[in-house]
C-alpha cells in the first residue's frame, strides 16, 4: 500500500519532449510563423534577402519588447492600454532633453524615470484605489500622449544635440549584422523568462493572476506587487520609445499610436490568458514575430495593406480558439 502511494506521489507525468512541446500554444504559433517564412521564401525572391530579414527582425523587436511587459500585466490579471502613449512620452522626453544639449545617457535615464512614474501612477490607482485597470490605463492613454504634445509643443524633433549620432546608432544601428533593438529584446526575454520562473516576484505575479484573494490570504503583498507590475510594463514601453526615437531619427507626437492593440494581440497570440494566470516571455516574442511576418508577407505578396487587420484579427481568434479546444480536451 505504502509503496504504491509513494509511487503515485513521486510519479512525474512521463511524456516525450515533443508531446510536451505540442501542448503549448506557442509551439503552434511558432510553427505557423516558420511555415509562413518558408512559404514566403519559396513564393517571393524578396523575403529571404538580408535587407528584408534585417527589417523584419528590427520592426518586430519594438512590439515584442512591450509585449513582454504586457504579458506580465495580463498574467497578473490586468491590462495596460497606456503603453503606446508611454512610448511617445518616453521618446519625447529623451528627444527634447537631447535637443537642448543634454547627453544621451542623462536623457535616457530621465525618459525611463518618466515611464516608471507613469507605471507607478497606473499601479497605485489600480491597486490602492481599487479602480479597474481598463479604466485607469485608458485614462493614461489619453493623458500621457497629451503630456508628450505639451512637452514638444506638438512639433517634430529631429535634432538631438551633441549625442545625435549615438542615439541614431543605438536605435537604428547594427552589430554583427543584427539590429540593436534585437539585442535589447534578447536580453529582456532572457531576464524576464528567468524572473517569471525562478523568483518570488514571478511566482506571486502568476498567483495574483490565478486567484487574487488566495494570494492576499497567504500574505503576499498583492498591492505593492501590482504597482511594480505596471511599472515594469511602462518600463518596457519606455525602452521601446528610446529605441524607436533612434531608429526613426525623428519623433512626432503620433509615434506609437494604436500600438497597444498590436502589443496586446502579440501577447495573447503568444499564450497570455486575458483572464490572468498564464503567459510567457518567449510566447510574447513569438506572438510579435508572427504578427510582423504576416504584415511583411502581405506587403511582399502585393496584397493591399488594408487586409492586415483582417489577418491579425483572425489570428488572435484562431490562437485563442486553439487554446479553448485544448482546455476542453483536458
Amino acid at each position, binding site marked *: 500500500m505504502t509503496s504504491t502511494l509513494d509511487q503515485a506521489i513521486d510519479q512525474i507525468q512521463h511524456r516525450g519532449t515533443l508531446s510536451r512541446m505540442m501542448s503549448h500554444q506557442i509551439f503552434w504559433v511558432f510553427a505557423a510563423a516558420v511555415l509562413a517564412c518558408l512559404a514566403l521564401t519559396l513564393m517571393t525572391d524578396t523575403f529571404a534577402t538580408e535587407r528584408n530579414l534585417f527589417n523584419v527582425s528590427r520592426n518586430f523587436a519594438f512590439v515584442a519588447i512591450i509585449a513582454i511587459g504586457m504579458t506580465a500585466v495580463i498574467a497578473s490579471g490586468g491590462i495596460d492600454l497606456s503603453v503606446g502613449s508611454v512610448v511617445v512620452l518616453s521618446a519625447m522626453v529623451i528627444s527634447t532633453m537631447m535637443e537642448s544639449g543634454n547627453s544621451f545617457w542623462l536623457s535616457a535615464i530621465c525618459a525611463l524615470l518618466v515611464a516608471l512614474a507613469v507605471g507607478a501612477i497606473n499601479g497605485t490607482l489600480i491597486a490602492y484605489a481599487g479602480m479597474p485597470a481598463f479604466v485607469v490605463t485608458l485614462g493614461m492613454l489619453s493623458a500621457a500622449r497629451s503630456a508628450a504634445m505639451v512637452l514638444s509643443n506638438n512639433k517634430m524633433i529631429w535634432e538631438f544635440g551633441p549625442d545625435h549620432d549615438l542615439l541614431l546608432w543605438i536605435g537604428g544601428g547594427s552589430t554583427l549584422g543584427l539590429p540593436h533593438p534585437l539585442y535589447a529584446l534578447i536580453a529582456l526575454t532572457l531576464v524576464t523568462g528567468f524572473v517569471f520562473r525562478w523568483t518570488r516576484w514571478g511566482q506571486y505575479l502568476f498567483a495574483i493572476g*490565478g486567484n487574487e484573494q*488566495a494570494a492576499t490570504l497567504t500574505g503576499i503583498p498583492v498591492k505593492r506587487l501590482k504597482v511594480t507590475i505596471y511599472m515594469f510594463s511602462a518600463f518596457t514601453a519606455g525602452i521601446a520609445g528610446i529605441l524607436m526615437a533612434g531608429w526613426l531619427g525623428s519623433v512626432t507626437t503620433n509615434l506609437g499610436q494604436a500600438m497597444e492593440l498590436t502589443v496586446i494581440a502579440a501577447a495573447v497570440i503568444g499564450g497570455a490568458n486575458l483572464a490572468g494566470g498564464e503567459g510567457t516571455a518567449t510566447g510574447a516574442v513569438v506572438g510579435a514575430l508572427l504578427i510582423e511576418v504576416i504584415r511583411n508577407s502581405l506587403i511582399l505578396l502585393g496584397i493591399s495593406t488594408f487586409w492586415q487587420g483582417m489577418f491579425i484579427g483572425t489570428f488572435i481568434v484562431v490562437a485563442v480558439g486553439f487554446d479553448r479546444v485544448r482546455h476542453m480536451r483536458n
Partner: protein
Amino acid sequence: MSRLSLKGITKSFGAIHALENVSLDIAAGEVLGLMGDNGAGKSTLVKVIAGNFRPTRGEMRMDDRPVEFHRPVDAQRAGIEVVYQDLALCDNLTAASNVFLGREATRRVGPIKVIDYAEMHRTSAGLFRQLKSETRPRDLVRKMSGGQRQAVAIARTLLSKPKIVLMDEPTAAISVRQVAEVLDLIRRLRDQGISVVLISHRMPDVFAVADKIAVLRRGSLVTAKPAAHSSPEEVTGLITGAIEAA
C-alpha cells in the same frame, strides 16, 4: 492540560452580541465538531480564534499560557492555521507552489535568491505522504479532484507544524467519495497530535470524526461534550432550540 482554552469569550458588534460568554476547551489531538444554525456565531468564534477579531471580553489560553491575537499573523505564529471554505488555491500553479505560496523555499545563486523547486517538491511530497493522499507535487491544481485540492490546502497548514487547524465547512460542496477522503485527512491530522476544529452543517460528517461536539445557539454555547455521549437527534434539538441545553 488543554491545547486551547476559551474562557468567557464575548464578542459584540455594537448592540449585537455575536458571542456571549463562551467557554470551551480543546485537547491536543482532539477533533471538535462545532455546530449551529446560520448566524449562531460559529464563524465569529472561528474568527476570534484565528485572530481576525479581538474578543470584546474573555480570555484565550494556549498550552496554559494566555495569548492575545491582534492580527491573523499572530495566531499563525502561535500555531493556528485556517483552511478556508473555498480553499484559497491558485488553479494555475502546481500543488507544491500552492503549498508554499507566500513562503517559498529559496536558495542563493550569486547575488539573487531563486526559488528552490527541488526542495519544494520534496517537502510537499513528504506532506502528501503523511496525509496518505495520492497528490503529485508537480501537477497543476486545476487538474485535481476535490479531495486532492483539500489535501493541498491541508498540506499548506502542515508546513508550519501547527497545533490547531480550523476548517470551515470543508465538506460543504463536494461529492460523497470526496467527503470520505476529507474525513480521512482530518483523522491523519488528529493522529499527529494536531487539534482540529471542524465547522460543519453536515451532521453525519461531524459524528464520523469528532471526538467532541460543541453547539452554539444565538451566540451562546448550549453544549460541549464527548461525541459518544451525544446523538444527532440531541444535537438537532440543541441547534433548533427544541432542547434548551445539555
